């Protein structure tokens, strides 16, 4: 029974991730792609060696983009659903829907925003091909570190909450997370490989569109998965959610 519940949640998580991926794909295509094209235009104008195209631009910006974004959505949807199974009823007295949205918000921060503030997304022509190994290692390291510290901060908050109360325990946990992330930012190496005359506005717009994709992805996931999980776990509609609710006791 419980194993079946986990399986059902996992399937719903992957489907919600796919749906959120579709939403993020719309943002990527309409907000992100124009910036990718401008950056490639800059690259072509400043480089004299022309590489042979393995995959055409029209495929990269449509089917290729869709493959990447949807697989990313499904994969993180599955992982988030498994994290949801752990978190449900353990992080606090939240309904499945609220737990899902809370988890998505934390995932957006820990998986994307925290690594992004140290190692932001870069458009084509920003980045030295010779340092790809170092940059990839540091990016994944920052991502793993951020997720582990977020889990650690959550556990710390739960441990402290009987003695400090939920409010102060949460404040202490968030502060501990911020200090630990600050130390990681301070000690991990800086990477700045933006070409000298690369347009600053293009870099800014590219990074904003990358951030917008993630906000839509995780926001969409939290809402869709929360709805699916709520219906799976609380099949009877709660009185408080229907239009003609009986006045609740509180």
């Amino acid at each position: 029974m419980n194993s079946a519940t986990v399986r059902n949640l996992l399937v719903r998580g992957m489907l919600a991730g796919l749906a959120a991926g579709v939403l993020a794909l719309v943002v990527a295509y309409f907000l992100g792609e124009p910036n990718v094209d401008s950056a490639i235009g800059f690259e072509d104008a400043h480089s004299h060696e022309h590489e042979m195209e393995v995959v055409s631009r029209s495929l990269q910006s449509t089917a290729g983009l869709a493959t990447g974004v949807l697989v990313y959505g499904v994969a993180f949807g599955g992982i988030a659903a498994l994290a949801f199974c752990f978190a449900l009823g353990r992080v606090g007295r939240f309904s499945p829907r609220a737990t899902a949205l809370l988890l998505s918000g934390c995932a957006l921060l820990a998986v994307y925003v925290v690594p992004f503030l140290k190692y932001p997304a870069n458009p084509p022509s920003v980045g030295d091909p010779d340092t790809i190994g170092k940059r990839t290692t540091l990016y994944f390291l920052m991502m793993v570190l951020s997720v582990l510290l977020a889990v650690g901060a959550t556990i710390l908050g739960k441990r402290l909450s009987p003695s400090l109360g939920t409010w102060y325990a949460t404040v202490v946990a968030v502060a501990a997370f911020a200090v630990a992330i600050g130390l990681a930012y301070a000690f991990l190496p800086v990477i700045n490989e933006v070409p000298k005359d690369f347009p600053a506005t293009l870099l800014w717009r590219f990074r904003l569109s990358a951030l917008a994709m993630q906000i839509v992805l995780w926001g969409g996931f939290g809402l869709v998965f929360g709805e699916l999980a709520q219906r799976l776990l609380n099949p009877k509609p709660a009185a408080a959610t229907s239009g003609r609710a009986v006045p609740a006791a509180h």
Partner: protein
Amino acid sequence: MAQSVAQPTATNPVVPATLPLKAIAPWAVFFGILMLILLYFVGAEQGATSVFSGTDVHEWVHDARHLLGFPCH
């Protein structure tokens, strides 16, 4: 942990029960690894490291890799 688990009361009837770790673990291990492999292929294959030779995977997900924030090239 036990005291924070669902205690249905009149004012808060919808606090969910926790799922036992034993039920989650096999799914988490198997699908967790599978999902991480998918992320590897979207985010890093034929960039920093390669399982397959060539650049087809890299070129196919090129735009997604840039826009999803992974270091690309």
